[in-house]
């Protein structure tokens, strides 16, 4: 079982990396691109047979407390 956590900068926070990549894409001719936001992807391996609901609760907490900083980031958790 795996958990996938996607962390993205909050829209209100300056994202110079995303902006630079957006500008580069525009230079390359990808004119339809109107925004780029660069975040992080964390893949977590879980022991076989882990209780799905318990894992979701625990990793939501870890996502909030540690893996993301709620002042500047949002995160999404997926279990599969």
């Amino acid at each position, binding site marked *: 079982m795996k958990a996938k956590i996607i962390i993205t900068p909050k829209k209100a926070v300056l994202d110079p990396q995303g902006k630079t990549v957006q500008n580069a894409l525009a230079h390359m001719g990808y004119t339809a691109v109107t925004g780029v936001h660069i975040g992080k992807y964390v893949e977590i391996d879980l022991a076989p047979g882990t209780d799905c609901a318990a894992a979701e609760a625990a990793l939501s907490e870890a996502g909030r407390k*540690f893996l993301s900083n709620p002042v500047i980031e949002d995160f999404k958790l997926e279990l599969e």
Partner: protein
Amino acid sequence: MNFSVLQFPASNCDQDAVHAIRRLGHQARMVWHKDNLPPGTDAVIVPGGFSYGDYLRCGAIARFSPVMQSVRQFADKGGWVLGICNGFQVLTEAGLLPGALVRNRDLQFHCEQVHLKTAAADTPFTRRIPADRPLRIPIAHGEGCYYADEATLAELRANGQVLWQYCDSEGNVTDQANPNGALHNIAGICNKGRNVAGLMPHPERACEALLGSEDGKWIFESLFEAGRERPAAGTP
């Protein structure tokens, strides 16, 4: 006065802080991240560097280290804590200071002298700073752009928690003098209780003429003066 200077894996300004404090005539000892603060600690310095390799986010892992639990108790009792550069990042991650430090707006690492306007003189970190001119202190960071939401910024301003702002050599707070894009040119802040402060510039690197500036010593002198007036509240 007895300073405890924390040491995380990949701290690299710990020795500088110890050197500066001892040179100014006070005691400083290094405290390993797995230990607790030693008894008799009057003030804590969370030094600069790249604690835990800056993995995940700057300061994100250091905040969970055993010594930081001890620092939190020390701060809760009113003990003085100063975070410098990475130490500032650690204190925001730990929730001991509001806001966060994000990538510099130009994506570059800045290593240069800056000027700082002291915006609040009524704290143990700023009380001795001369009011007539800005401080000249170096910065060295890639993630020093201070960010907080509007409500937090309003609260910081209302409570006089903004301690230092980037300014030009005349003391004007301008966008041009802002090296990293920090909101309101914020270089350093304190908590509501005014006993925990953090700043991105390095006062410990500006305490002797040989290094180009002695202005950083005013921040330490402020703490020394505060220490003379009151025994440490937070001694464990």
